[in-house]
């Protein structure tokens, strides 16, 4: 069986497979989480920026943990998804830049707890949904759409998958948007919502077409009784196989 490779991760070099490289990355992530917690504890004004930093870093730890637990043969530095894609890093840059520019001009508006605390709760719920979905689906979950069937590949349709067809996408979609509510970034809220939505609007129909191809009527029936949960994204049931020709 081919090695599992998360989306955005390149094929890892020997250096990236070193245990010390992965652990030191973990230490550095932990260091920044500790710094952010220390700053919050010390009562700095930009509490919500620290909260965002923690959410962001915990996301990467959980993505890595999923690979390490469920696909240990494929684990490497790239499993952290820290170098996910240029778009991802650019979006992060925009978010941080917008925060600090607006914080400079409107510090009180930027740190209103009635906005960022509810947003934090929603982010945590989104992250929990994503991670639970990934771990529960175990080796059937893959960051890359699989276009050939694995013998061990089966349709997961119980627990959280009983209600949501793509719970990890559902969780991540709301997580990513509400991180920008945590930061109280009006521009990036719109930018992130549009970027996430357009990504899933293209990906989900294609993925469902491949799943239909593998599971046939079973998947079609599954689609009848479940939701995607991301607004304005729908799939034709049964999925149009012609999409696969693209």
């Amino acid at each position: 069986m081919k090695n599992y490779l998360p989306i955005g991760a390149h094929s890892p070099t020997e250096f990236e497979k070193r245990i010390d490289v992965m652990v030191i990355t973990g230490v550095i992530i932990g260091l920044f989480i500790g710094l952010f917690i220390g700053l919050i504890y010390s009562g700095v004004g930009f509490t919500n920026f620290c909260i965002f930093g923690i959410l962001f870093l915990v996301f990467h730890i959980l993505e890595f943990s999923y690979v390490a637990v469920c696909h240990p043969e494929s684990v490497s530095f790239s499993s952290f998804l820290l170098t996910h894609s240029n778009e991802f890093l650019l979006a992060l840059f925009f978010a941080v830049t917008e925060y600090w520019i607006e914080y400079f001009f409107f510090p009180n508006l930027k740190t209103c707890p009635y906005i960022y605390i509810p947003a934090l709760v929603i982010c945590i719920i989104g992250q929990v949904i994503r991670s639970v979905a990934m771990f529960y689906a175990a080796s059937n979950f893959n960051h890359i759409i699989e276009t050939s069937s694995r013998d061990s590949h089966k349709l997961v349709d119980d627990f959280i998958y009983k209600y949501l067809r793509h719970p990890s996408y559902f969780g991540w979609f709301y997580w990513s948007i509400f991180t920008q509510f945590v930061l109280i970034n009006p521009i990036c809220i719109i930018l992130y919502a549009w970027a996430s939505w357009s990504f899933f609007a293209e990906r989900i129909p294609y993925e469902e077409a491949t799943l239909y191809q593998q599971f046939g009527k079973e998947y079609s029936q599954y689609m009848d009784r479940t939701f995607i949960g991301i607004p304005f994204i729908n799939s034709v049931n049964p999925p149009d196989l012609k999409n696969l020709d693209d």
Partner: protein
Amino acid sequence: MKNWTQRIDLLVLTGVFVGLIFGFNFILIFFGDTPIHLFMCLLFLYHFFEFTSSVYPRPYQSSLHDFMLFHSPPFMCAFALSIIEYYVEKWYFPSIKNHIYISIGFTFVALFFQSFRTIAMYVAGSNFNHYIETSHREDHILVTNGIYHYLRHPSYFGWFWWSITTQIVMLNPLSTVLYSVTAWYFFYKRIPYEEKCLIKLFGDDYLQYKQRTVVGIPFIQ
């Protein structure tokens, strides 16, 4: 399935934990009670370097033991005692804990001695072990270069003085004495035994090496 202590997810999460404790305490050096947070940073920096220098000769193989987080029961007891002493004295004799500049100064001394241990582990490479080896390994050689040119047990030398200076950083008079005596006694028992094993392994080479180097811990020959 591997031993659970070798699981990569636990190794990375332990790394996150070590980094997190260090980062949190680092901030509180400036915003909180300086001496104890300096101590915590020194302690977790020590655990980080224990890991990196242990893994240096074998980057694809590691276990949770490399962090030395649960060093030994005496180590854990000593740690607890130093924390207790710190807060009891802070409560009853707060003026003792106000000498921040002693604390800061000895932090740099502790880092200096930490460097002896870490450098020694790097120089020894695969010849270093957290445990005394009593049987011969094919690839086990006598290391006499670098820091070992002057000190026979540079990692013990570094650790001995590091552990004492951490208690000076904490401005803990009782623990400074306790750590000195305990660490000294530990090496007083360990070093002669270890050298007996090394003489058995390397014979005259080691005896000659012993002639031209020192241990660096007082009253231990």
